[in-house]
């Protein structure tokens, strides 16, 4: 598989893991974070205001109001 230029967005799962050989299976008692593959980027000004140049890493946070004072 070509690891260098996957131009699709959003990136398809499972993520490709290129620099080291991909393990066949995940193992018990290990934590895994999928490898990011660079696809597209924001413009510099957009990136600064989003907090990242990678759209796929944006996790917006909207604050919720207090519903009846009983928490969320």
């Amino acid at each position, binding site marked *: 598989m070509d690891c260098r230029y996957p131009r699709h967005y959003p990136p398809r799962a499972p993520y490709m893991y290129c620099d080291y050989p991909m393990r066949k299976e995940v193992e018990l008692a290990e934590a895994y*974070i999928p490898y990011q593959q660079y696809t597209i980027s924001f413009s510099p000004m957009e990136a600064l205001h989003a907090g990242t140049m990678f759209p796929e890493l944006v996790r917006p946070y909207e604050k919720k109001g207090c519903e009846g004072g009983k928490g969320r």
Partner: protein
Amino acid sequence: MWVYEKKLQYPVRIKNPNPKMAKYIITQYGGPDGELAASLRYLSQRYHMPIPEAKGVLNDIGTEELAHFEIVGAMVYQLMKGACPEEIKMADMGTYYADHDNAVYPSTGTGVPFTAAYIQSKGDPIADLHEDLAAEQKARATYENLIKLADDPDVIDPLRFLREREIVHFQRFGEVLQKVREYMESKKYF
């Protein structure tokens, strides 16, 4: 060696002083999940990382955290600047004021001074990287709490930026964890 760049990584332009908000935010300056702790954690752990990718990530994220330490410091400074003792008293920040006036001091909002006890440097790269992943999540959660407590857009804007950086750092630490694990496994068999 570090070189100072005379600008903030993200601008802080708070027009209205708000000592109450300063009291909440200062925990990200000198508290358990704050930027100073993050920076010292990564910059101390980097010595025992086994592969160049891991050394690079800890070195560079540790450096970026210093820039975040400065952003949070600027926020506290601007929120406290121009606040009168009367307002500080109203904000329940009198105990802080007694010790520090309007100055910026690395502590929690309740006055617990910064301590290296907030961090670990275990000498075990896998254990250290798991701490780093957790640290990014705890900082993200803290920024979400702070965003919930804030209503001034001048305050919320940099908090959002800092929160998003925690997510990016988490991703990088996750990738490093995988690389370190692969490296250690390769050593086991050869």
